[in-house]
Every structure is written in C-alpha cells, then in structure tokens.
C-alpha cells in the first residue's frame, strides 16, 4: 500500500501539515519530556538505562502519529472492523500461547518490544463503537436493540482480558465503552441502573477474583495488613509524595525514590518520583498539561462535522484520561494498586504506542473534520 492510495483528497502535504494540531503536539511533547526527565532521574542520573530508549520510542511513535493524522479519517472509518478483528486475534493469541509474565499472560514478544494487545484493543473498541454509532440518531441509540452490537464489541475483549487475568484493563475497557454509549445518546436510566447493578454485583464478583487481586483490594482497605507487599508500596509512595512539599526536593534529589524505597519507580510509580522532586508545582504543571489535552480533545470533538470523528476524538480523550486518573489516584493511595502505567510518562512501549496512536486518530479527526465519511 502506498501513501498516495490514501491521499485521495484535495489537500497538499504542506496544507495538511499546517492543519496539524501543533498545540496538541506541543502538549504531548511536554508530557513526554516530563517522563524522560523522570526516567533519567529514576536511573540515578543515568541516561542510558531507561531515558534513551524511551526517547527513541517516543521519536518513532511521533512519526507514526503524524502519518496516522495525515490519513483521511474516512479510511480509518473503513478500516475500523479489520483493526478490531486483528486486535481480537492478537488477544486470543496471547491467551493461547502468550509470554508468561507475572503469572498472567499479556504479552506478545516482538523482539524489540513486548506488545500488550489489550492496550491496543482499548483504541480498537473506541473506534468500533464510534463507527457503530456514526449513522445512528439519538432515537435509535435510545432503543435497547441498537445496543446489542456495542455490548458484544465491549464484552468480547473484556472476556479475553479477564481470562489473562487483568481486571484493571477489563474495567478500563468497560468504562471507556460505557462513555461511548453515553455520548451516543443512550438513555440515562441505563447508566443509573448499570451503576446500581454493579454495586450489587460487587460481592458476587468478589468470589471470582484471583487471590492476588483480593489481596490487592484488602491491602488497599488496610495497608498495615501487608507491610512487606503492596501496602508497603503505597505507604512509601505517599511518604515520597508528601515529603516533596510545595517546591519539591529538586531534580535528581528525590531521596525516597533513589534509595529504592519505591518499587517500579520507572513504570507505575513514575508520578511519585516526579512530584517528590518537583513538588506540588511540578505536579500541578503536569496535571495542567493533562487538562489542556482533555480540553483539546473536547474541542476537536465538538468542531468535527461527522459523528464518527466526534465520537472517536472524545473517546480517545476519555480513554487517555482513564489512564491518568487510575495511575495517579493509585500512587496517591486513592484507589487500590491495579498496575496501570501513566501514559507517555511511564517507561514502557505499548502504553506509549497506544497513546500516540490515539492522538494520531484525534488529530486526523481535526484535519479531516469536513471529510465525507460514508458507510
């Protein structure tokens, strides 16, 4: 497939480049810079350990992002189902003969990186739902029969992810999917009853949780019960964050993180390291970057002239924000440790890739907001 095959529109390359959402590009680069600086610090001032690889991945990912953004959104519309099914095949593949890590099967080894199909599947679910609701009127969306396909689109990957077993990712797919159904105009009572139903089914679901998952929830409720395990991580993370104060301890000065009180400081607990060293000011700075990214997502969505783009742009934003909330709330002890990375900041290939693909699609929605998306 050549590039020209997709460029059947009337814009020149230069025009499209000019229409790229450079503001969003700057925001993404800033967040990634925070990540690279933190990884440099996490390695104790060693650039080669994590930061250089992260930087390389980000560079390659940004090129991918621009390519994705340049392709007319209608092509993405047409490619949605193939992408969804390829994602499902990969998920089945890891289930069958995946790499066994941490007791759960989640990865495909590509040689240069460990690909986690469930991360890509989150984007695919958002795309599939955007496509499904594209042609629907709110009246249609109100009908329950119209929600059968979305239910299947969400349930299939959720079932596979639960088999891995990865409760955190499963919940995130459900939440992102629910947000899509919500924005398409499904009746409010549906969500109210779903929330009530979830509250009722928690004790039942508890029975099906794996021992380690139960332990995580229990440790969250009573961190003292497991001073050597997850409770230790949360306590140490809170000490590190709190001791940062308003101004932070300064770059490379984060004693808690450097003395190895923090586990996984380069992945899940990277936010802790950042705010220990840069304090509340650094934390608010990063949260503000996220705020601008959310606003950009909302704006792109609202300005889009076709439903597919609207749903997709906002869906990508919601998906990204779920990551942000879950990771940061986790390291600050607001929710149980679920093992979710902070996208663009944590060390890791797949979460970076998934985030950049998402933003690439969001930008495509922006450039081609007038595109004629047809069935």
């Amino acid at each position, binding site marked *: 497939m050549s590039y020209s095959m997709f460029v059947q529109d009337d814009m020149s390359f230069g025009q499209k480049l000019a229409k790229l959402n450079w503001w969003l590009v700057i925001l993404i680069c800033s967040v990634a810079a925070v990540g690279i600086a933190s990884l440099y610090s996490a390695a104790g001032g060693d650039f080669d350990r994590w930061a250089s690889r992260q930087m390389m991945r980000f560079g390659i990912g940004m090129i991918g992002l621009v390519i994705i953004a340049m392709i007319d959104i209608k092509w993405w519309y047409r490619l949605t189902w193939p992408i969804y099914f390829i994602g499902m095949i990969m998920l089945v593949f890891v289930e069958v003969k995946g790499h066994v890590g941490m007791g759960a099967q989640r990865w495909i080894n590509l040689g240069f990186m460990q690909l986690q199909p469930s991360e890509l599947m989150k984007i695919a679910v958002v795309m599939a739902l955007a496509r499904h609701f594209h042609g629907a009127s*709110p009246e249609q969306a109100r009908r329950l029969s119209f929600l059968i396909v979305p239910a299947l689109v969400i349930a299939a990957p959720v079932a596979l992810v639960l088999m891995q077993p990865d409760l955190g990712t499963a919940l995130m797919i459900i939440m992102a999917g629910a947000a899509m159904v919500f924005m398409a*105009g499904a009746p409010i009572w549906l969500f109210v009853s779903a929330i009530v139903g979830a509250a009722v089914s928690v004790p039942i679901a508890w029975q099906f949780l794996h021992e380690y998952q139960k332990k995580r929830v229990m440790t969250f409720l009573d961190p003292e019960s497991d001073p050597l395990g997850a409770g230790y991580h949360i306590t140490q993370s809170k000490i590190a964050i709190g001791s*940062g104060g308003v101004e932070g301890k300064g770059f490379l000065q984060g004693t808690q993180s450097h*003395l190895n009180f923090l586990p996984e400081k380069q992945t899940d607990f990277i936010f802790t390291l950042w*705010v220990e060293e840069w304090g509340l000011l650094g934390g608010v700075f990063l949260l503000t970057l996220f705020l601008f990214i*959310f606003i950009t997502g*909302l704006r792109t969505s609202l300005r889009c002239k076709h439903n597919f783009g609207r749903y997709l742009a906002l869906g990508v934003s919601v998906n990204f924000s779920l990551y942000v909330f879950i990771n940061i*709330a986790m390291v600050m002890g607001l929710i149980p440790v679920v093992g979710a990375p902070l996208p663009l900041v944590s060390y890791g290939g797949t979460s970076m890739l998934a985030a950049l693909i998402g933003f690439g699609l969001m930008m495509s929605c922006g450039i081609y907001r007038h595109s004629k998306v047809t069935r």
Partner: protein
Amino acid sequence: MHHDEYSEKIFTRRAFFIGALQVIGLGILGARLAWLQIAQGKRYKTLSDKNRINIKILPPPRGQIVDRFGVPLAVNAQTYRVLIISEQSDDVKSSLKLLQNIIDVEDKDIKRVMEEVSKAAKFIPIKIREGLSWDEVAKVEVNLPDLPGIFIDVGDIRSYPYRDATAHIVGYVRSVSKEDLEKDNDPVLRLPGFRIGKTGIEKFYDSPLRGKAGAAEVEVNVIGREVRELKRKNAVSGKRVTLTIDGELQRYAMEVLSVHKSASAVVMDAHSGAIYAMASYPAFDPNIFVRGFSSDEWKEITDNLGRPQTNKAISGQYPPGSTFKMVTALAGLKAGVISKNTSVFCSGKYEFGNSTFHCWKKYGHGDVDLNKALEQSCDIYFYKMATEVGIDAIADMARRLGLGQKLGLELAQERAGIIPDVAWKKRVLGQKWYQGETIISSIGQGNVLATPLQLAVMTARMVNGGFAVNPWITGYLEDQFLGREQWDSLGISKAHLKLVMQGMESVVNGKRGTARASSIDREGFEMAGKTGTSQVQRITMDQRRQGIKNEDLPWKQRHHALFVGYAPMKKPRYVCSVVVEHGIGGSRAAAPIAKLLLEQTQMRDPARTQLQPEVSKSATSPVFWPPKKPIYGEDNQGDL
C-alpha cells in the same frame, strides 16, 4: 450523512458532561496532591528527611531435620561472612582487590559483588564470601582499617553433618533462582544469600521447613544507617522434620555398600513401612551444593559411573532376577498349579516351542519341589509353572506385592518399574505377547523391572502376613504424626506365604542354599531371603559353549547382583533389599551386604524405640548393644 440539530444538541450536552467529569477528576487529583504535600507535607517530610522508615525482612531460622532418635541430619551452622557496604567505601573495586590479597576470593565473586553494588541501595550490605576460617577472620580483622566498607559478621548456613550418607534422603538447599522467584513471591526469597530446598526432604517439605519471615520497621537516617527499631514482627521458625531413618544405620549402610562401585540398599519395617535406612552409593557431599562448588568438584560428581546424584534405591530400575521367584510361586499357588509337594525334573534345559531355556545350573537340579526350587534357585521349576499359570496371573500378584507402581514415598525421583503383561505389551510396544516371554518373566528377566525400594516392599508384604504396607520416611512434622502403622490385608493366603518363607529360610540356612555363606549365626537373629542375579545382556551361545565367566567381561556387561531378605527369621520385623550394579552374582555380592545390614539393624533395633518428635540432647543416637533380650519382643505384631 445528515445531522439534525437535535442530535447535535444531545451530543454537545453529553460531551460537555464528560469534559466536566474529566476536569473534576483532575481537580480531585490536584486536591489530593495538595493535601499530601501541604497539609501532610510536614509529617511526611519528617518521615522522609530526617529519619526514613525502612522495612527490614527478618529471615526465619530453617527447621531442623532429625533422624528417628532426634539426631540432627540438617542443621543451621554459624558461618563467618565478609560483607561490604558500598557507601562506606570510596572505591569498592580497590577495596575488593585489597581483600583478595589477604584471603581467597574468586574473581567471579568480585564480578557478582560489583554487579550487585550497581543495583542495590548503597547502604545494603552485600555478601562477598562466606565460610571463612578462623585464620581468615583474623587476617581480615587485622587489616580492617585498610579496608573501608568491609566488615565481618556471623550468619546461618545449612550444614549436613552426615554428609554423603544422607545426601539422597535429606537433599540440600541452594540459592534462589530466577524461576523460583517467579513461582514464589515470598519476600524472604529476595534476601541476599537466602537458600531454599532443591532436592530430597529439603525440597518436599520446603514450605514448612522455611517458616515465615518477620519484619522490622526501622528508622534509618539520611545515609541509610539504622537509628532505632519502631515495630517488630518476629520471624516464625520453620518446623522440625523427624525422619524414620536411623542416622547411624544409614551411615553403616553407606559404608558396607562402598566396597562396590555402585550399589543401593533399603532397610524397612515389615509391619509399618517405616524406612530405617535407604542408601545409594556413591553419593555426594550436600554441603558443597550449599556453598557452591568448584568445577573440579562438579566434574568428580558427573564423571562417576555410579551416578552419585541419583538415588538408585528409588530410581534405579533393575530386572529383579530370581528375587522375583517368590512372586511367581505365590501366583502358582494361588492358581492351584502347584502345591507344596509338586515335583518337577530339572535337566538343566527346558524346551518350549523352538527355543531352549537354560537353568543356571548346567547339568540340572534333578527332582525339585517348591522348597528346593527356592533354596537352590532352580529356573526350570518356574519356567514350567509359568507356562501353566500365565503372565497375567503373575503380573497381578506382582502388582499386589507393590511392583510396577510408584509407592508414594515423600521424595521426588521415585520410579515405577515395569511389570509386563499382555495388555502392557500391546499398549507400549503394540505387539502380541509370546509364551517365551512368560518364561523369562517368571524368573524376573525380560521386561520386568523393579527398584530396590519396591523389592523391599515386596518382601515386607510377604513376611508381614500379607498386609499392603507402603514405605514412608517422614515421621513427624513438628508434633504432627505423618506416618501410618495399620495397613489393609492383600488377601493372600497365609499358608502360601508360609511356604514361600520356608523356601527363603532354606536359601540362607539350608545345606545347599544359594546364600548359605551369609547366614547369621546368632540364635534368634537368623535371617532368611532370596538371591538374584540378573542379566544385563543375554548370555550368547558362544559364551555358554566356551564357558566364559561373567567376571571376565567389562564391568558394564556384568550381571547385577540382588538380594532381598528379612530378620529375625522366626518373627519377621525388618526387611532389606540390596542391589549391587554389575556385582556378578547375588550370593557373592548382595547377600553378604544384606547379612551385615540385617545384623546391624537387629543390634540397633530401631523398631523397639517409639518414634518421637524430640531433638536428642546428646546429639548421638542411643546404643543398644549388647541387646538385653532377643529383638522380636512384645511389640511384634506379625504372627505367622
């Protein structure tokens, strides 16, 4: 696609709602951050800046493994270790170089320490070497001022006082591997220098032996030194394992086996199934596995023809040879093919179909009845009987007596042996069964394979009155009894068992018995048994004609020598099986060892002392010699 205003309005409203949720979410995160860093900031700052809380894992002392008299077989010895704290040394590498000039430190250890230094926190001590001698400790102590960061402390190391004698049973501990860490998330595994059970009882009972790690919350200052302890949850020591083994008997067994290149033996209680000794020679010194071995030591183990790492008593599979004849006899008696007085003429040859089957005695035994057939180990008697009984009946009796199956000992490595029959051959080889195979199987050749443990169990089940004993080697886990004393009946006629046992008595005590040279000449202590010699290779016609002696062949082609026996003869209590690999003949190689073992066992009489979960205070086993009365006393339950 047309979008009407209504649709857009709904979407816009809902999109803003979602946007609002995102902003609220960020607000909550920001508020929490501010609360932690401003409101709680001071508290956390004190915890962090001045004194930080560190959690120190306290390793549990590993449970002891003791023999039936409480004599330690695996203990925690103290060892002097030399360690380094990298933050106290200006230059770790040069400190290590200096140390190398003072005591022996291998280059690979230096490399490992350098790696750990780069990974671990700077205040954590890293082990350089352990097992320092007094001399070495003194040398390092004197030079300490020149060795910044280096210090000496005392730690626990597993030690096996019986060394190679108990190596196969007790097993050994070794450092934790990457795979272990994936399987087991016990935090104590991550402690530097921690070791876990890798073989034997150490592995089988690793979890109870290991105990549970404790934790101490300690305040550490800015450079990481401990200031004071805040909270402490003590470690729970591992549980003690009491084996049924008699350590001294075990050592003795090892000693008497060591006259051969490769041999194994089992001594067991005929009534309970408790194992008193289980030896496989040669073995290895488990202590070298604990501390790590040199390539020479490793080569010595792997090059040894006797396979020191294998516990041949449970995983060596041998054709049982004539020791199998009791099985065939019991099958024949049960089927009614023979009785006590059935007589067969042995000419030294037996023609069946187109083949000729030989007796070991070239010119035959003449008229043979069951007693004589066992006493002199006549093959023809069993050939003839087997063709009438059939292989399936023989195989059934063999399985009843414990052959052809794993017996559930608390050790890995146990193997099942093979008892062939018609169905087996069809399943495994996909072939039809031939009568000729029945003939060679009847004397324990052909495809029949058994382990020394199985042979001991077989003998026990015959002499204990036909009870289905299984072997066990762990008596107590702390105070919890794990053994078993009562067993179900196998439903074998006691009269038949008695006939077979009379034959076994003649083997050792009869005028022409194959093991008459190995009889025990002490009244009340006599033994009975059966010799066996099993071919590793077929005897060719050429060898028969030229009369080539087996001892002239290379070691690997010589016959295996076997013996199964029991004592005291009149009131059986102890059974014993011996297999000498390539020992040429059961009477000359295996029977004398069984004699020594059963004699020694009766002198020590381990069955007389109730097995108790206690650690011996004297750290030596009791001496019963000379015995005050004949061994088979009031606690002997087998009455035939």
